[in-house]
């Protein structure tokens, strides 16, 4: 089971790179949905079965895999955008930086003072790599939708780390994380709506007109 979990985590990291390399928003959203579903399955693989665990798995798959991606693609449809145009750093360079970050996160995880039973797992490097990918998406992409996706990826990274820490997966921790996510998406959705309404564009680089002089 642990071996399967590790393989899934490799998949998560590959999805990270996919998101960094693509320019099509719908494709990014689907990738994030797949990543969410994988994350939903993961707890079932590493913890013994219980009713509680089933509920959590279902809720996570619903939220991360279906509802949130649906909301974002809905926003994409309403705002009439298909592609991320002119990112601050091009796709190939971000892809390379993403690869470097993934490598670095492996190196960094080696140096962390982890508990011996976590030493050989991929959880820590995968979580750090996902976190860094989220940051990379947030900083390099221009469209607000891409930033929402970046935020989601960031949250996924934190979630992977949480899997490691909460052995018994207390429901409160999970609920808190999900709520956090939902609020984040909610705010982002409102912001996107307002940006596109006010500026007839959702290009966040135009937001600088809002800064005080």
């Amino acid at each position, binding site marked *: 089971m642990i071996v399967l979990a590790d393989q899934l985590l490799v998949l998560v990291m590959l999805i990270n790179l996919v998101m960094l390399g693509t320019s099509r928003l719908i494709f990014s959203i689907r990738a994030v949905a797949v990543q969410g579903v994988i994350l939903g399955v993961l707890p079932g693989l590493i913890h013994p079965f219980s009713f509680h665990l089933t509920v959590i798995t279902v809720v996570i798959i619903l939220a991360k895999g279906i509802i949130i991606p649906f909301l974002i693609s809905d926003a994409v449809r309403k705002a009439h955008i298909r592609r991320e145009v002119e990112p*601050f750093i091009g796709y190939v360079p971000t892809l390379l930086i993403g690869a470097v970050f993934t490598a670095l996160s492996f190196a*960094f995880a080696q*140096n962390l003072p982890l508990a011996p039973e976590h030493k050989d797992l991929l959880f820590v490097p995968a979580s750090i790599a996902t976190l860094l990918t989220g*940051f990379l998406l*947030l*900083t*390099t*992409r*221009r469209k607000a939708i891409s*930033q929402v996706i970046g935020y989601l990826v960031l949250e996924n990274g934190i979630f992977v780390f949480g899997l490691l820490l909460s052995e018994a997966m207390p429901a409160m921790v999970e609920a808190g994380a999900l709520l956090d996510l939902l609020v984040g998406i909610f705010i982002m959705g409102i912001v996107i709506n307002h940006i596109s309404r006010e500026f007839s564009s959702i290009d*966040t*680089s135009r*937001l*600088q*007109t*809002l*800064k005080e002089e």
Partner: protein
Amino acid sequence: MFSAVDPTIYLLAAATLMALSGVPGLALNRPAWGQHLAAFLVVVAAFMGEYAAVALLTGSPGVTYQVDWPLPFGPALLSADLLSVIFLMPLFLVAGCVSVYSVAYWPAHKHASAGKLTLFLGIFAASMVIVVMARNSVLFIMAWEIMALSAYFLLTSEQQNPDVQRVGIVYLFATHTGSMALFAMFSLLREATGTFAFPLSHSLSLPVTVAAVVIITALIGFGGKAGLMPLHYWLPGAHANAPSHVSAMMSGVMLKMGIYGILRTLSFFVGVPAWVGWLILLLGAWSAINGIAMAAGQRDLKRLLACSSIENIGIIFIGIGLALVGVQLHAPYLVVCGLFGAFIHIINHGLFKSLLFLGSGVLIHATGTREIDRMGGLARRMPITSPLFLIGSLAICGLPPLNGFVGELFLYVGAISDGIIAPLPLAALVAPVLALVGGLAVMTFVKLYGIIFLGAPRSDAAAHGHEATATMTAPMFLLATGCLAAGMVPVLLVRLVSPVVAFYGDVAAPALARITSRVPIVPLTIVNILLVVLVAVIGAAYLLRLRRLPRAQGSTWGCAYPVPTPRMQYTGTSFSEMMVNLLGAIVATNRRRPTLATAFPAAGTRFSYTLTETVLDRILTPVFAGVGLAFSYLRRVQHGQLHIYVLYIFATLCVLIIWPH
């Protein structure tokens, strides 16, 4: 006789009533009713407060109230001792007068801000009552901050005006600097005593350095609020730009809260270090001379009055300083006379400065300007305000038969009797300082009264000046009566202040009676009566003679000009020119002269004259401009690029990850 009712509860009830007085006005859809109701409530509260103050002065025991609030700072203690009472008396009197005056001065049907102003005026007065009654430092700081902030909201009533905005910012800066010092001071006291409750009087003995820091921070925090030099920089602008009744309240009452704070802090100590008395004496003398010198050059009516407040605060500090020096030199005259002078002047200044500020409100109402050089000839047009303003002006100059003289008399007597026989007769120098200040004050207020009320009107607005309604003149009349009564019968003031001096100075009753009997109070009364009779007789004779002689109208003194205009009269600026030149080191004038090629200036040639304020304009403003420039480089970090902001977080995270390795 008052033992049946506890006066402290009256004070608390009065504070509550004042704090809530403006609330109905916010809910009523007729704001004018709310304003009238608020004025009525404040007057009721003022009567309750004065009743309680008199009860406490006549020996009714003060009770301490303890409120067990859920905050972790110990119980909130409230009580009123005699030191509180001496500040509460002018507070309630001025608050009552001001609230009545505001109904006509800032009527709700003309000013949309009237509701807000009424609300904050009540809160302002109530917070000051709590300031003098708080016996727990956290409660004190809370009331202090409410006072400071409500004063800010009051003084920025005309917030559309950029001048008002600027002085508002300066005031906020000054008051928060002071609060910071007070936080430091109360933290040190908490460290020393282990509790947030105020230490009992004369119970605290701290290590020398700690005591020094406590006293210095108290002087910064409280002295800044009182307007002690060099922390006075906020005062002229704030008083000048606030609505006049708010200025009256701020100058007549709020400045005294700073003095209260210092007196209360000093009372904690078993023995105050020797240098404190001299320092306070020096700062007081400096403030008095500088304050009146600044006032002498002003052209703005209210700015002049504000600067003269600095002078009066200086005189009060001179009194406190004399008393402290006296304690150190074991000179009972200095102690008693210094305290008498300070306490009497606290009451007096509350009376006459409020009177003058209310008077300035009437003048602004009538002429629409604060520039005294645009007024003139108002004595004929304002037959009630003019004599009231004259009484205030004479009182503030410290001339008999008015109350200002009584306080200064005690200071003179103290300085001359014990100051000279002291081993170090430096304290005697107070007498010439006071004389200098008094002389400058006479010149300043002759200028003020003469330019405003005498001569011919210098502008159309002044020519059409009109008397105010009775709602505005009645409070002024009350204050002027107070000035006159206290001046004519100084025994009243002495009787009022004696228990406070005995309490605060720890002086036994026989010693107190022995010393006060040496101050010529009864002769002063007789001289005062003679003076008034003399003035009345001469005035009556003059009027009789005036009636019998034929009348002719014409220009007074044409200076050989065939067509003189009212603009050719002496202005305030020209009247005080010589004095300002002599005081050039203290008040920096900024003159822009035209260069003249011919004997007569060309048309359109202008001469301008402004006064700069040393601390604010020459020190603080350049320093802050420099700091602002330095920080403007930091503004580049804030560019509005959302992505780069995320990058900052990211970079911070990376640094934190790499740091330990």
